[in-house]
């Protein structure tokens, strides 16, 4: 199921012709390269998890609260589960939810943003109003309320995250689409009698591929972080293994108060690494497409800390 989602989005291919220098710039950008390598490692881990650690990762395999050792590289939890197995298996749910939420909210954002910009007038007013209301409602409390009323489960988590996450991307994409809407070639398409759907998705959308990509990355980061937060509060599906749930159990079993730092560190670091890698790619997209943000120093001096 994950593989279907992991296949790279259609945006870059659709945008290849007008944006060849964009793809090239991205590949030669060090930030993007580091980010993509980290992401590929995590995706590989997620796909290979059942082969690397066969069986249920949450079964009890050893003594409780063992420190990291050659047998259990990251030690064991207070229940006696192998932390490394939990962490590697956790990447599956976290990446799956993050990517699903990212794609779904970006998709809604594209629909709303394009419709707003293309039709304008009343439709724009109405859609913008809804978007702004959703932007303004405090996210996490809304998340908690929704999760409290809906039956617990992975579907609920995804649904709730999409409901609270789409508005930001819709706003960004709308303003970008608006500026493209006023370009001459769109006016030409309208005059030549092209259908609305075609203008929106074949004329306007390919021209904002880079900002769609940035939005997508932002949404995935949001999805992974918010899922972890929700699960840490115990509002996710506590029976699945994911980074957020690992941290929930770590907190529940008092891992920190008893000094079992190894239970608590790995999942948090994994979330941070994924989010950081995605943020790096995002900044790289920004730099490649916005000449003003490009480094003005000699290449030697750049990206020192990013490569770390």
């Amino acid at each position: 199921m994950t593989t279907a989602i992991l296949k790279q989005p259609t945006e870059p291919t659709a945008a290849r012709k007008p944006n060849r220098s964009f793809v090239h710039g991205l590949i030669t950008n060090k930030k993007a390269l580091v980010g993509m390598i980290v992401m590929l490692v995590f995706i590989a881990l997620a796909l290979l998890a059942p082969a690397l650690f066969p069986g249920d990762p949450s079964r009890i395999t050893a003594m409780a609260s063992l420190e990291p050792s050659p047998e259990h590289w990251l030690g064991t939890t207070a229940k006696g589960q192998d932390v490394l197995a939990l962490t590697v298996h956790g990447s599956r749910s976290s990446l799956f939810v993050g990517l699903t939420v990212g794609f779904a909210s970006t998709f809604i954002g594209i629909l709303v943003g394009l419709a707003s910009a293309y039709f304008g007038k009343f439709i724009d007013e109405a859609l913008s109003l809804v978007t702004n209301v959703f932007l303004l409602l405090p996210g996490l409390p809304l998340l908690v309320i929704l999760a409290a009323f809906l039956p617990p489960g992975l579907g609920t988590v995804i649904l709730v995250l999409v409901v609270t996450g789409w508005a930001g991307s819709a706003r960004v994409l709308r303003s970008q689409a608006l500026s493209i809407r006023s370009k001459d070639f769109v006016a030409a398409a309208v005059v030549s009698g092209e259908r609305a759907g075609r203008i929106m998705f074949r004329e306007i959308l390919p021209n904002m591929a880079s900002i769609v990509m940035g939005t997508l990355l932002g949404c995935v980061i949001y999805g992974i972080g918010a899922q972890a937060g929700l699960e840490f509060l115990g509002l996710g599906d506590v029976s699945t293994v994911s980074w957020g749930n690992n941290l929930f159990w770590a907190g529940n079993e008092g891992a920190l108060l008893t000094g079992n730092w190894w239970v608590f560190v790995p999942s948090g670091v994994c979330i941070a690494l994924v989010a950081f890698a995605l943020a790096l790619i995002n900044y790289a997209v920004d730099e490649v497409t916005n000449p003003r943000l490009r480094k003005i120093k000699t290449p030697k001096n750049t990206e020192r800390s990013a490569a770390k």
Partner: protein
Amino acid sequence: MRFILRRLGFYLIAFWASITLNFLLPRFMPGDPVSRMFARTQGKMQPEQIEALRKMLGVDTRPLWEQYVDYMHNVLTGQMGVSISRFPTPVTEVIASQIGWTLLLGGTALVFAAIIGNLLGILAAWRRGGAIDSALPPVLVFIGSFPYFWLAMGALYLFGVVLGWFPIRHAFTDGLEPAFTWEFIGDVGAHLVLPALTIVLVSIGGWMLGMRNTMIATNAEDYITMAEAKGLRPGRIMLRYAARNAMLPSVTSFGMSLGFVVGGAMLTEVVFAYPGVGYQLLNAVQGLDYPLMQGLFLTITAAVLLANFLVDILYVRLDPRVRSN
């Protein structure tokens, strides 16, 4: 003035939307909250509690629109019902006792993060490619990548448990009587350091990068070159010419991040058992205290909307272009 009225109308609509959401959620959700709650309390509820719950959740036979009108009326007159988990305290009383702590924590963290972040952004943009510009953003973005609550737990462990520098839970020492004495204020301050510090750490990066990027655009403006040509001191150009004009997006995001702070502080409050509305919201959810849950959500929403409205008014003062329109 028209701008202000437009915004006011918008906030009223947003508030209406959240009240309606609150009304609809328990009525249309799959799974009946009332039966879930009965199962949880195993019939230990008192008749008054059941009555309060029925009222709040609208488990009655009247038509929906009548319930809706009734509900709107109750909310607007401040009748949020009675808390179930802290029966028979009214919901409004529970919230009133806690919102101050959230405002203290969120406000302190937000002000510090905005000031430090914006100053760093100004400096980074002024010295493009300098030490601050090249070293800090990646570090801050990396710190910002960590989950909020994870950093908070790490800080709690390191500075609270291992080093013992700061208290690890609650907003003041147990048994200390809240009063305006130096002892109490100092105690509250000590309890505030860790939670506020973690929020500042993760949010500072966003402020800095936002300010830096706007500043870079502002620095390319002609009036900056003009100011330099006039021979003004660099410090004056940086602060009074460039930074002042680059501030506007920051003011907007200040309003936006108020919502983030009230919501985001929720996780921090949970980690530090800080007695704010976020911590209470989680307790309400765990205790299936639906009236309190809804009251808290409405209060948080109202606070966020109000804060945004105040920022809008400030914006009119700062940006003459809005006024003339």
